């Protein structure tokens, strides 16, 4: 049996410039971090060598790979060449469709586990590429490429999307004290709304031509954000988070809504310097940057929302068990 453990992520800045419609014309850039909330995928031989048994939010027992209803599992099995005799189960720390990149964490973690099951080692780069191919090329999801890369590599990173479709990324090196300050000043709240990212992202993708100036600005912010971290200026980081949100809101009509706007306003009035909705928008998780002395006030004023503690995660996808 194989178990893979793959981090979720929090995207800080530049989301949208990782879509092909943007980066094929000019280089894209995001700042993103893996967090210590994970997706676990288990893969083992199945008792019936001619069948496939799947356990996720539903169960499936099938004899023909093409009949699998879960699109990512179906394409991942075809891509790796596993046609039968396998059992797959998934578990996660956080529910799906909440903006923490869970579907790409799932894809990357599943591919890592399936390759390990086949006794193959794949590099983070190879896993990210294969995951992008499945989600974007095969399944036509209207998503970018940052989630697959951060899930594969882990860490706090600036990721660059080049016009020739290649991707490079580097760890943003910051002193431990700055990292700890950042971690304790970032607060994550769950709106309680799981949303369908597809509609929002499809609109955002369609808008890219019209919204290029905003995306250009967000890309610039991602480099500024990296510099703010390198120069240990966490206050500036918080302010840049706010600037990014001001642009992000404009990329598609349903990224924010009156409820999210109200939460955001409350947070800023309570002392947060900046924040954003994570992922596509419309619901899911809210992130705020707030200095410690004002956090009690913020948490009190967000009392309807569940706070989810987290830390940064240095590891990308890993095989944590193998027998």
């Amino acid at each position, binding site marked *: 049996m194989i178990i893979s453990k793959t981090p979720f992520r929090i995207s800080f800045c530049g989301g949208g410039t990782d879509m092909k419609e943007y980066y094929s014309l000019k280089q894209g850039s995001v700042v993103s971090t893996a967090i210590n909330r994970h997706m676990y995928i288990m893969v083992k031989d199945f008792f019936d*060598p001619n069948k496939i048994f799947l356990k996720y939010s539903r169960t499936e027992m099938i004899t023909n*790979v093409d009949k699998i209803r879960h699109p990512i599992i179906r394409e991942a099995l*075809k*891509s*790796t*060449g*596993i*046609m*039968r*005799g396998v059992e797959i189960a998934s578990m996660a720390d956080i529910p799906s469709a909440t903006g923490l990149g869970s579907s790409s964490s799932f894809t990357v973690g599943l591919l890592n586990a399936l390759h390990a*099951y*086949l*006794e*193959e080692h794949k590099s983070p780069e190879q896993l990210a590429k*294969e995951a992008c191919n499945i989600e974007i090329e095969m399944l036509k999801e209207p998503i970018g490429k940052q989630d697959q890369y951060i899930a594969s590599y882990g860490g706090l990173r600036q990721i660059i999307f080049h016009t020739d479709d290649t991707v490079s990324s580097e760890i943003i090196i910051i002193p431990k004290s700055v990292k700890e300050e950042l971690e304790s000043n970032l607060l994550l709240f769950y709106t309680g709304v799981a949303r369908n990212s597809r509609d929002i992202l499809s609109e955002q993708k369609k808008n890219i031509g019209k919204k290029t100036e905003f995306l250009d600005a967000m890309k610039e912010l991602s480099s500024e954000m990296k510099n703010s971290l390198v120069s240990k200026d966490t206050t500036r980081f918080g302010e840049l988070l706010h600037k990014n949100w001001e642009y992000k809101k404009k990329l598609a009509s349903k990224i924010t809504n009156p409820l999210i706007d109200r939460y955001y306003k409350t947070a800023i009035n309570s002392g947060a310097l900046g924040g954003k909705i994570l992922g596509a928008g419309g619901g899911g998780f809210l992130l705020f940057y707030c200095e410690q002395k004002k956090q009690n006030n913020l948490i009190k004023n967000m009392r309807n929302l569940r706070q989810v503690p987290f830390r940064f995660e240095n590891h990308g996808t890993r095989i944590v068990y193998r027998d």
Partner: protein
Amino acid sequence: MKGFISEYFEELNKILARIPEKDIEDITNVIYNAYTNNRTIFIFGNGGSASTASHFACDLGKGTLSRVYDPSEKRFRVVSLTDSVPTMTAYANDLSFEDIFVQQLRNLVHKGDVVIAVTGSGNSKNVIKAVKYARDCGAVTIGLLGFDGGKVKKLLDKYVVVPSNHYGRIEDVHLILEHLITDYLRNKIK
């Protein structure tokens, strides 16, 4: 003769028009995934299909190359089980004719590899035995078939059945498919 020629061509055209394109796409994808994952592809068959197996391996191995002197060019890992007369006759003589392919697979096949069975009837015992073994090893099994697909069909993950009951036409089309697939892949990986 004139009538025979035109009838032959016409029949071939009709057969080609009835092959589901999706089936060809599916087996091509399996072969392409094997390439990207560095898996080995094994091809085998009897008689005319043996020559198609050898021909297919030659084209996938060499015919897909665009920069033959470039050591960094990624190549197909492909073996036909129909190329070694010593090995085939050794197994046929010492064990049985049914064992000539499966015994070669036992040296080499690994989970995730791909086997391609080329068989007009779909009923050749040595082909069926090899496909069964490949399945048990966790290989992806695909086939180029004819008639109704025969007994091997249900053991295959993906296949193309050439809709004809004539061995000659079936083998003609298998060769066309082999060329079509390798040509497509050569352009795709270029």
